[in-house]
């Protein structure tokens, strides 16, 4: 309560007239409870789907029936979410919707199977469309998070079929940067924007994990994916990472940061070309710091570590070249820090020895 009162006092000082609360303060559901809800919903959906597959065999045998039942289940889930005033109903709605989505995915595979061109690309684009619509319309924050996550993975899968997987992670980073920067656009949309933002961030981490393990959806489905535009993927990805940082800096410029920050998109463009994961991780770390959001920042650190890890496995350069590049980068970064200390007199801003880090 003290922190609320401190904040109120601070806002009053800034000349903001505060109203009496229109609604009582509700306790936010902790994220770990939402994880449990999503996990059990997903698990229940799998058994529900098994029941449909075994109990009503004709449904899975016919793509049209599968699609029809899938859409009906999603419609029922939508209705339940609108009416749900209890956790039990919300839970049921989530499981029904997830089972419906699996049925639609099954129908998409059966429907496009006859297609001579890339089956999995068509399936992935269909799923991307479905998940994007669900992320927009489903009246449940948990569902929106899940759909944003699933949409980002479907996009990755679709672009991976054209050897453009890198573009997907760049695009998702750009989208999540735009979302988080517009978190406080309207009082009614804060939670929705956060739900999408978390979903996309989780999607980005999974994409980096796939890149790190040297696997991709391409490996699983189609070893011959190519595209005439494949050569442009690293550049497009690097440009999107740099653009995300530029947008972030434009937003931060309102609080007058140090001028040296403006040089960073150019440096990041180069880093992202050779080590996309590193560039993406750095942007997420900076984004989390700029918004005062510790969870986003922590996930950014994880993303950065995965990016550094995948650099080791990057095949276009020998380990000797990579070692020399790291040596040069490390030297430049430390020299830059020294220069900031010496010439720009940041010393006055340095933390006291007791500040930061934790004693053990």
């Amino acid at each position, binding site marked *: 309560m003290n922190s*609320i009162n401190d904040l109120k006092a601070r806002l009053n000082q800034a000349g*903001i007239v505060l109203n009496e609360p229109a609604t009582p303060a509700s306790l936010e559901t902790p994220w770990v*409870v939402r994880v449990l809800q999503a996990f059990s919903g997903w698990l229940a959906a799998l058994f529900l789907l098994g029941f449909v597959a075994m*109990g009503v065999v004709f449904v899975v045998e016919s793509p049209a029936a599968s699609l029809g039942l899938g859409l009906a289940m999603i419609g029922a889930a939508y209705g339940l979410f609108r009416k749900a005033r209890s956790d039990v109903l919300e839970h049921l709605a989530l499981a029904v919707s997830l089972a419906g989505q699996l049925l639609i995915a099954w129908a998409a595979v059966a429907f496009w199977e006859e297609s001579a061109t890339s089956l999995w690309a068509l399936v992935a684009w269909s799923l991307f469309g479905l998940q994007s619509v669900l992320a927009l319309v489903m009246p449940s924050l948990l569902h929106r998070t899940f759909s944003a996550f699933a949409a980002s993975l479907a996009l990755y899968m679709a672009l991976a079929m054209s050897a453009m997987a890198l573009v997907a992670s760049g695009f998702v980073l750009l989208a999540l940067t735009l979302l988080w920067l517009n978190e*406080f656009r309207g009082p009614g949309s804060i939670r929705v924007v956060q739900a999408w933002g978390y979903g996309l961030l989780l999607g980005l981490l999974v994409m980096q994990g796939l890149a790190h393990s040297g696997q991709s959806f391409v490996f699983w489905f189609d070893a011959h994916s190519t595209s005439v535009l494949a050569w442009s993927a690293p550049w497009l990805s690097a440009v999107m990472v740099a653009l995300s940082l530029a947008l972030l800096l434009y937003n931060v410029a309102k609080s007058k940061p140090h001028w040296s920050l403006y040089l960073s998109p150019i440096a990041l463009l180069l880093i992202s070309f050779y080590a996309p994961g590193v560039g993406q991780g750095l942007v997420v*770390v900076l984004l989390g*710091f700029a918004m005062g959001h510790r969870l986003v920042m922590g996930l950014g650190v994880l993303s950065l570590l995965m990016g550094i890890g995948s650099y080791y496995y990057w095949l276009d350069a020998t380990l000797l070249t990579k070692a020399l590049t790291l040596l040069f980068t*490390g030297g430049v970064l*430390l020299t830059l820090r020294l220069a900031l200390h010496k010439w720009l007199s940041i010393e006055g801003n340095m933390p006291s020895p007791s500040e930061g880090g934790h004693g053990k």
Partner: protein
Amino acid sequence: MASNRRELISLIEQGVIPPEQMTRAVQASGLHPSPRAWALFIDRLLLWLGGLALAFAVLFFVAYNWTEMGRWLRFGMVQAAVVLAVGIAVWSKATPTVKRVALTAASLLVGVLLALIGQVYQTGADPWQLFFSWAVLTLPWVWVARFELLWVLWLGLLNLAVGLYFRTWGGPFGVLASSEAAQWGLFILNTLVLAVWEWGAHDRGWPQQWAVRLLALGSGVPITLLMMTLIIEVGLSWSPVLASYPLWLAVLYGVYRYWRPDLFMIAGGCISLLTVATLLLARLLLWEGDWQEGSLMLIAIAVLAMGAGAVVWLKRLHQEMSQS
């Protein structure tokens, strides 16, 4: 990084802040860092990234295994890097953050040095010996650094060593399958460290939050996997895990419900129990039953009921914990 984001959102949602004043309120709330905070943050980011890039440069160089370069030169280079890092850490003018970066880099470089010994002399040692020696040799630095992240990295090394040891040699009496022995090893190690860390947090003011939660995951995941393995392989017949798992759940509940209330830990226990119970139902109704569609529906309903029940209960606990 102190943040009042939760309070700000709560005020906006309650309608306390007029919608037309929202942008001004966000600026006035101090949610966005000041130029000074940015300067500090960039300073630390440059220091950490620069220090780690140099340490990784040495690691990548050794991994390249440049045979034209003499062994003494390679050893000399890595040892010089270690001495330089430790030198910076003991330098009187170094700030606490510089010392932490230097000791983290030095700890990484010890691993590189051990890998180089293995590379040059082809010692034939098991991988667990590398990680164990690495952990033992870096312990003094980790101890003096008094830095949470370095402790967690060190425990990660110890986990690797213990996991690899039991995977290679099986259990203490050779009666356990090697992967099961590794899970037992990790469970015992992480549970002991968790208990020590909780004691330190209570009596010595050690930091809690994420490190303790990571350790709880290190304790919970192996025991859950052991329980799942038991159900899959033999069902509910007698095994030490049959006694350990309920005991672990009970202690987790007792400690984090009453002694040090933490919803994360209790929710983790719920996820573990939900997984184990679902697997048990699947074994009883599907594998030992006859795969009827009714059984699948029954399990779906059971999972829904357990999940919803857990969510309702955890929300109530959350309310209790935030009021106390």
